[in-house]
């Protein structure tokens, strides 16, 4: 049993942390995250140069990482900076390309020359892959993918769609061939509606269900780690604020009611970190064990993230409500992570379905 990160991962984490602290401070982040193009293309190129995207892919598939702990290393730092770059979409796309032997695409994405993402949700599916209506016909796709993370700046969009055989297939669409409606999300960073109307597509697989589930689970683990990073920062901000803010002639950190609330959310952050490590360790396990661990993790992250976000805003008082204060953006990110790739209740339903509870007495 060893919880220390490998030397390689520590180096990636450290260099990413340093880079984001210097190049992606919160003022810059907020400047780029809410206005077109909802990220900073120059910084994306630099992240690629740093090798961050390569860390998300295994050596066999053209990268130098790809394990659960590589993903959490990168995304924890993304969370510390609430970085608005389209890492999540590219992570899922890279996993899907890797599952289908698309070495060429992986190479260009890792190099930062192209970006990609994965569109699966539709306005009526709420994450349920069985309800997807976008469908393939010949070499075209028709349908509409909603809130495609990073869809505002991707060159290629991988689309989950019903194949002609009625299975869940995976298709690649060039962004230039689709109608893209880009926008900022409420917590910053970009997404898009991707409208497909007999749009030219390339089939990667007529039955990509397993690969899609794995890519989504990788995305969930990434979001868990991102939340842990954001929670760590928000905790320090809150602690510092309590020590500095004076009311009734003393720092409000001296009030036990506030101390205990900070302690309670600190405990949940440690729990969140633990379950994220657990899920990351299971990312390459058999699909059922993986799906259970990931659902458990993201459920706890959803609960902990909401607690930390709401308590941080509350303990900051009015200042926590302002756009100008960086803590509010961390709180928003933590709340909205729960809306990505299945929320607290979705994860709980998954965990219940996979639990051994339903077995014989």
């Amino acid at each position, binding site marked *: 049993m*060893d919880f220390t990160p490998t030397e390689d991962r520590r180096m990636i984490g450290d260099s990413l942390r340093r880079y984001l602290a210097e190049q992606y401070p919160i003022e810059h982040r907020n400047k780029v995250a809410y206005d077109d193009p909802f990220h900073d293309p120059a910084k994306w190129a630099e992240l690629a140069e740093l090798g961050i995207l390569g860390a998300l892919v295994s050596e066999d598939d053209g990268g130098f990482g790809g394990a659960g702990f590589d993903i959490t290393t990168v995304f924890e730092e993304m969370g510390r900076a609430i970085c608005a770059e389209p890492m999540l979409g590219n992570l899922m796309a890279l996993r899907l390309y890797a599952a289908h032997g698309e070495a060429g695409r992986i190479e260009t994405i890792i190099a930062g020359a192209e970006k990609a993402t994965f569109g699966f949700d539709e306005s009526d599916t709420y994450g349920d892959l069985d309800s997807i209506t976008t469908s393939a016909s010949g070499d075209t796709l028709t349908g509409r993918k909603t809130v495609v993370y990073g869809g505002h700046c991707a060159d290629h969009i991988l689309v989950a769609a019903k194949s002609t055989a009625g299975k869940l297939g995976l298709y690649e669409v060039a962004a230039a061939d689709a109608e893209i409606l880009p926008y900022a999300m409420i917590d910053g960073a970009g997404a898009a509606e991707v409208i497909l109307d007999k749009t030219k597509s390339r089939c990667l697989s007529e039955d990509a269900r397993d690969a899609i589930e794995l890519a989504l689970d990788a995305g969930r683990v990434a979001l868990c780690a991102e939340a842990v990073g954001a929670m760590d920062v928000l905790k320090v901000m809150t602690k510092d604020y309590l020590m500095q803010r004076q009311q009734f002639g003393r720092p409000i950190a001296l009030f036990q009611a506030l*101390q205990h609330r900070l302690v309670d959310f600190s405990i949940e952050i440690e729990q969140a970190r633990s379950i994220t490590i657990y899920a990351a360790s299971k990312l390459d396990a058999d699909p059922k064990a993986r799906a259970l661990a990931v659902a458990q993790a993201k459920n706890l992250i959803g609960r902990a993230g909401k607690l930390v976000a709401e308590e941080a805003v509350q303990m900051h008082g009015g200042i926590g409500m302002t756009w100008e204060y960086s803590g509010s953006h961390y709180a928003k990110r933590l709340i909205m992570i729960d809306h990505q790739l299945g929320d607290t209740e979705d994860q709980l339903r998954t965990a219940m379905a996979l639990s051994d*509870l339903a077995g014989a007495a």
Partner: protein
Amino acid sequence: MDLNFTPEEEAFRHEVRDFLRHNLSEELATKVRNGRDLNKTDLETWHATLNSRGWLAPGWPVEHGGTDWDSVRMHIFEEECARANAPRTVPFGLSMLGPVLIKFGTEEQKATILPRILSGEDWWCQGYSEPGAGSDLASLKTRAIRDGDDYIINGQKTWTTLGQFANKIFCLVRTSTEGKRQEGISFILVDLDTPGIEMRPIKLIEGGFEVNEVFFTDVRVPVANMVGEENMGWTIAKYLLGHERTNIAGVGASSEALSQLKSLARKVKRKGKPLAQDPIFAAKIAEVEIDLEAMRMTNLRMLSGVADAQGSVSSMLKIKGTVIRQAINDLARRALGATAAPFPSEDVIGNYAIAPAEAASNAANYFNNRKLSIFGGSNEIQRNIIAKETFGA
């Protein structure tokens, strides 16, 4: 990052499992599984069984009869014992006084007292809390006044767990009223046969007897019974409270309680179907299972970094561990519906068979385990400890 146990650790787990299979009687395990009160013989039997294997005091140095287990092995041992429904060992001699004597005792104290703890000749209990000194322990008033080669003790201790089975008690007593309150406290060993001591049982919320009040009236105790110097009791008390933290989260016990809850939920019914299939109840179980899974990892993380484990880490484990255990107990009580109500007696469990035998004490256990967040430093005190470290104030 490697979350697997080493082959050596797995081999150790099998060794423990094997030992438990051959040495823990089915009768005793059933009693523990069913949440029944253990009598003095039950506890002594298990104490002797572990002692004969040399596993009674894992936390002690080998020279005093302990093991050389690291914290991961301790964790594995605890997990396996809980899984097998072995009784918990009584901590007062093994986890509290033992380490204190090893650290602060004279050679003579170590040589005479430690072996008697292991052999079971002495059963120690704890004289810390007083009616007016709970969370604010330093306000304790039980007085020890020097008289020649003796101290004369007057006062009252309370919440003395299993004092009814004990022949010895270690006490915090006030030896000075000068200066800071903490600096006038001493740690002293008392024979419960000494004239002037009266032990009275306290009946607890669920009807059980596990704690007592102890009254001291002009009790004469030899000066040689003091541990450490006069007035250094607070240092010893703090050491004692900080010791033996590996098991504070109770992960093994909670895991076993959760697995019992699950099998109960498969057995009992609502609207003709197993409760396990009810989405509302199943969701509550799933949630506490997630919290426990995270806790298990948190515990292992803390164990693997024991070197930098500070006060606040064990406080964190204590808070979350007790809250999770209580949540499981709460569900285990509610799973029974109306059948949780009968007071668990031999008739109710053995003859009337109202609830499954292993669950008949669930309501009693729920009530009894409300103690978890109160004793050993209440969860509020633990929050104060963490806050003090967080804010440095």
